């Protein structure tokens, strides 16, 4: 990201709000990972369904576990899933999209498009359930299911962008100084798609967190630990009995984080859109 982009982002109040929200949640996640926060998520420290109070700010659940601790720990889970899925599917998507675009209309392009078409045609939750079943309770089943389905969108966008960029004169110039074709693609074409990857990455991040919640709710997600999705799944039974602690804590945290990410994604898109400012 260059200086001008940062300046434009800084002058966008919505974007900055989003950035601060995301940063605060990331900080919480880092504290959880380093063992400073949320470590008591599985300890029964109180009675069943305690209300909001000084010792348990958001109350406790059925087993007397502190809901605040569980919400904080869920933040780390959300970031763990979001980051893993975003990084892997963006790397995979940009390589596949890059190859498809560089060899557009060739056999490799056909293969990649075919693979993409197949993956896109499978209903996602069915696919995730199949992967989870095939891997028999592996903690990575959910990540894998998301990575192999999420890369296709990134690949489609990158393919089109690569086809556009490869016709530009600096690619011809790279050939004229003796750079081999595929190296040109990785050195000069893909780096020119970074603004798209960054924006697409934030969108994938939001989708990953969202999907984790839904999959965990369905029992296909997090196996070891706690996530906002698991808390929402618990709350679906509890709200009928008038216990709103899990529902409010995890729902609010999820809503604020996703809102922050969406604001950031929008602002990034505007800040990095250099079309028209390049002469």
């Amino acid at each position, binding site marked *: 990201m260059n200086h001008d982009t940062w300046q434009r982002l800084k002058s966008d109040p919505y974007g900055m709000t989003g950035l601060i929200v995301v940063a605060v949640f990331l900080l919480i996640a880092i504290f959880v990972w380093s063992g400073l926060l949320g470590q008591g998520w599985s300890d029964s420290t109180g009675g069943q369904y305690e209300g909001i109070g000084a010792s348990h700010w958001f109350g406790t659940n059925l087993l007397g576990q502190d809901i605040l601790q569980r919400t904080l720990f869920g933040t780390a889970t959300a970031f763990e899933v979001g980051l893993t899925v975003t990084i892997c599917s963006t790397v995979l998507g940009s390589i596949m999209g890059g190859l498809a675009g560089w060899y557009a209309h060739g056999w490799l392009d056909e293969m990649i498009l075919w693979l993409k078409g197949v993956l896109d045609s499978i209903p996602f939750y069915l696919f995730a359930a199949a992967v989870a079943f095939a891997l028999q309770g592996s903690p990575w089943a959910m990540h894998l299911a998301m990575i192999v389905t999420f890369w296709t969108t990134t690949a489609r966008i990158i393919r089109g962008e690569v086809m556009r960029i490869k016709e530009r004169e*600096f690619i*011809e110039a*790279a050939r*004229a*100084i*003796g750079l*081999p074709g595929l190296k040109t693609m990785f050195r000069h074409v893909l780096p*020119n798609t970074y603004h798209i990857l960054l924006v697409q990455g934030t969108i994938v991040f939001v989708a990953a967190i969202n999907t984790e919640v839904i999959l965990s709710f369905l029992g296909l997600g997090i196996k070891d630990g706690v996530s906002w999705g698991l808390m929402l799944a618990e709350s679906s039974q509890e709200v009928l009995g008038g216990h709103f602690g899990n529902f409010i804590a995890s729902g609010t945290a999820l809503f604020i984080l996703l809102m922050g990410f969406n604001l950031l994604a929008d602002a990034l898109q505007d800040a990095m859109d250099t079309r028209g400012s*390049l002469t």
Partner: protein
Amino acid sequence: MKVPALKVDDLSVWFDTGSGRIPIVDGISFSINPGDATGLVGESGSGKTMTANAILGLLPGAGMAASANAIEINGKDISGLSATAMRAVLGRDIAMVFQQPATALDPVFTIGQQIDAVYRRHLGGSKSEVRQATLDALDSVGFSQAEDIASAYPHQLSGGMRQLSMIAMAMVCKPAVVIADEPTTALDNSTRTLILQQLKNLQSRHQTAILFISHDLSVVSQICRDVMVMYCGRLVETTDCESLFSHARHPYSAGLLSCIPQISDKRPAPISSIPGQIPNATALPPGCHFAARCNRCEPHCLESVPKLDFENGRGAACFRPL
């Protein structure tokens, strides 16, 4: 006799279609000595850029093919080299300066990073040696603050500065030959003069041979000693600039010269142009390609192709030269 820096022997480029070959460049031969600059002029579509691309082995698109008896750089034939061997030559022995400096530089890397990459690829060296070569190259095209330019992104520079950076990039490995494809067309007049001056400096300092492609005879006359006039893929006249301006032998060259508007205090003459149009490349006439537009045309001209006929080192492909 000196070994020419660039020697092209019988270069042809054509486009293959289902119904046959469309010639784009039709058997042209020339050579440029070290330290000389030769202009290649002609109208748009006459095959100038394709000549450059064919020399570099970089023909765009499918269906295009080229052949040549020889393309020699300092006596070494590069026409039969494999793609891998050719990549070692490109940028080191022969380099190109493009027409649009705005788009020929990668927008996401600094000028320095891009010039570094060329030097590192061909000559290698430690990080500081590579950067020193880059700064020397930027310095040699007249930038007084080479380090500032090296750390700038292309969009932070003006068109002229970008083109000077392109020239620095082309010169960083001190190649024997530089092909400049209309390097000043996108620039204003004063910048153009500056660019031409820097090209001239570099040429005399490193004894680089320059093939200068342009449609602008006045620009060519500023930098080149010799000039080749191209029409429909053929060289119609090769001569030195002075003789071309004082006494063009081919009617097409004479026509081009008369198209340059004259400023005088007399009542302005109407701006002249060459009558007719460039013939369609898919249906070229069998004889002289210029015959249909030529006021000296004879029946003979429509039937057979005139060869470049040399007289005191000046060649014209015409049966009835002026």
